[in-house]
């Protein structure tokens, strides 16, 4: 039993280590991936601030910060999950699948590695936003926000792996990125408050797991949220668990 557990941990660690090595080698890509949310924060923040009012007050650019952290975590996690397609395309997947290790733990290791890179990127955005003058309510709130990034990251990596094991080319990947990630971001309340939406939109927003991630981040960082924090956390955990199980299962059946 102990031996089995050791092997499982070693498998997870090996896959995590690989993601870290690759992450470290692609520093320029990381900087590039931070550019989009930063542009959003600077330009969208300034534009909204000068044109819109929320509840009678001018739009506060700090409102965007949790949404953009959520967006980075979503992009980077989905990317991490879907990167299995690359592993298949470039052959490395065969090397993993032929090793005498459990495929579930391989997938888990990949997920843990991917979520680590996502959280690092989320933290970077959080720090940059702080440098730009956005104030967070407390240190414990910041730590809780990191935990939220981790849990939502696991969920979206699971989703990415699930999608990746269903599509067989990297053309399909482009489809996923445009038809899945953009709507998830736009329908999450990252850019607008979700309290006064028309019925159909509100339905989509509440069906979107990212909404709960963004809401929880906003609660912990800024001290305000529309959805009660307990509900957000529960849903995020349920989403992460369901996606891990589904992703792990489909990955196990994947053919090379």
């Amino acid at each position, binding site marked *: 039993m102990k031996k089995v557990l050791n092997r499982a941990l070693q498998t997870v660690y090996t896959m995590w280590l690989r993601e870290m090595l690759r992450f470290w080698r692609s520093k320029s890509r990381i900087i590039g991936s931070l550019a989009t949310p930063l542009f959003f924060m600077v330009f969208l923040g300034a534009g909204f601030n000068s044109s819109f009012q929320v509840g009678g007050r001018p739009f506060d650019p700090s409102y965007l910060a949790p949404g953009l952290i959520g967006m980075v975590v979503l992009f980077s996690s989905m990317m991490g999950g879907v990167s299995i397609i690359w592993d298949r395309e470039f052959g490395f997947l065969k090397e993993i699948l*032929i090793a*005498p290790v459990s495929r579930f733990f391989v997938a888990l290791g990949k997920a843990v590695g991917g979520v680590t890179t996502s959280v690092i990127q989320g933290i970077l955005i959080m720090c940059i936003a702080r440098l730009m003058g956005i104030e967070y309510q407390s240190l414990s709130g910041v730590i809780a926000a990191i935990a939220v990034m981790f849990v939502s990251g696991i969920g979206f990596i699971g989703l990415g792996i699930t999608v990746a094991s269903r599509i067989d080319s990297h053309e399909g990947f482009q489809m996923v990125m445009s038809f899945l990630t953009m709507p998830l971001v736009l329908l999450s309340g990252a850019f607008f408050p979700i309290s006064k939406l028309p019925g159909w939109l509100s339905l989509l927003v509440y069906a979107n797991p990212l909404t709960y991630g963004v809401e929880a981040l906003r609660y912990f960082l800024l001290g305000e949220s529309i959805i009660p924090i307990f509900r957000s956390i529960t849903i995020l955990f349920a989403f992460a668990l369901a996606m891990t199980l589904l992703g792990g299962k489909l990955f196990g059946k994947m053919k090379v």
Partner: protein
Amino acid sequence: MLYAIETEEITKRFDDIVAVNKVSISVKPGELFGLLGPNGAGKTTLISMLSTIAEPTSGKAKVWGFDVEKESSKVRENIGMVFQDTTLDDRLTGKENLDLHGRLYGLDGKTRKKRIEEVLALVELTERADSIVRTFSGGMMRRLEIARGLMHHPHVLFLDEPTLGLDPQTRNHIWEYIKILNKVEGVTIVLTTHYMEEADHLCERIAIIDHGDIVALDTPEALKDGLGGDVIILQLEKPDDKSKLCDIYDKNGCAKIVSRQNDEVFITVKNGEHQIPHILSLASNAGISILAVSLRKPTLDDVFLHHTGRAIRDKRVSEIEQVGFKIRSRRK
């Protein structure tokens, strides 16, 4: 355990195509065994089943004493595999690739370090150990993959077209490594190839495979001797005379017909040099005019031709092969 590999009527079907048809082979521990056949013959499918990547449609196979279906994890621990296409992580260094492999196979830190040095030295990549794999040439990648396949001391090593697409010099190098592995490390090696010279030069026994069937299996020498002497190729002026000429030789009993293709007739005879005049006079007596004659020692190509009626190098790929090939490229 008597055999390193033992299969019993192992079969693989893709939809209505039979890629491997009831193949039964046994490979002894320490043997260097070759699967020779054209593209799409079923070589890769056969070793995919033996290495637990593909499941057999029917039949049984044991590798190092373990059933490939019921004990796949045990099989995986005991084999190393070098695929046709690269499976390295090209963003990592050579050493990192080997290290991750060692971890996946449960080697501890000390063993990994020692073994990485050993296998790198074996394939002469020690100096490039810390370079990113993306900067490697095709030959270097193949060598690194062979090194990686050996990291965990496998008992059986599968090499799928180990020298495909490599220049002759690199190919010779890889051949030397394969021989050393087999002799020095004592690894049982099963390789697939469609290069006759490769099978001839390296393998102790060869299974010739075509359309999923094993058509011949023996040592390279025995396969060639089985043809019955030297090969004579006669080029005819009129291709229609082929059957007539073959009948004459058949009746006379002086030569064995290997095959007839286009305007050429392949025959084998004992003491070729002395038989040519006799062979030619038989033809001219029957009024068949011959444009050219050539004589050579038999090669595995002739063996393949004899058993399948086609040259292994035949450029015209038959329909079923094309389908097989498509399946493979789709699955990449």
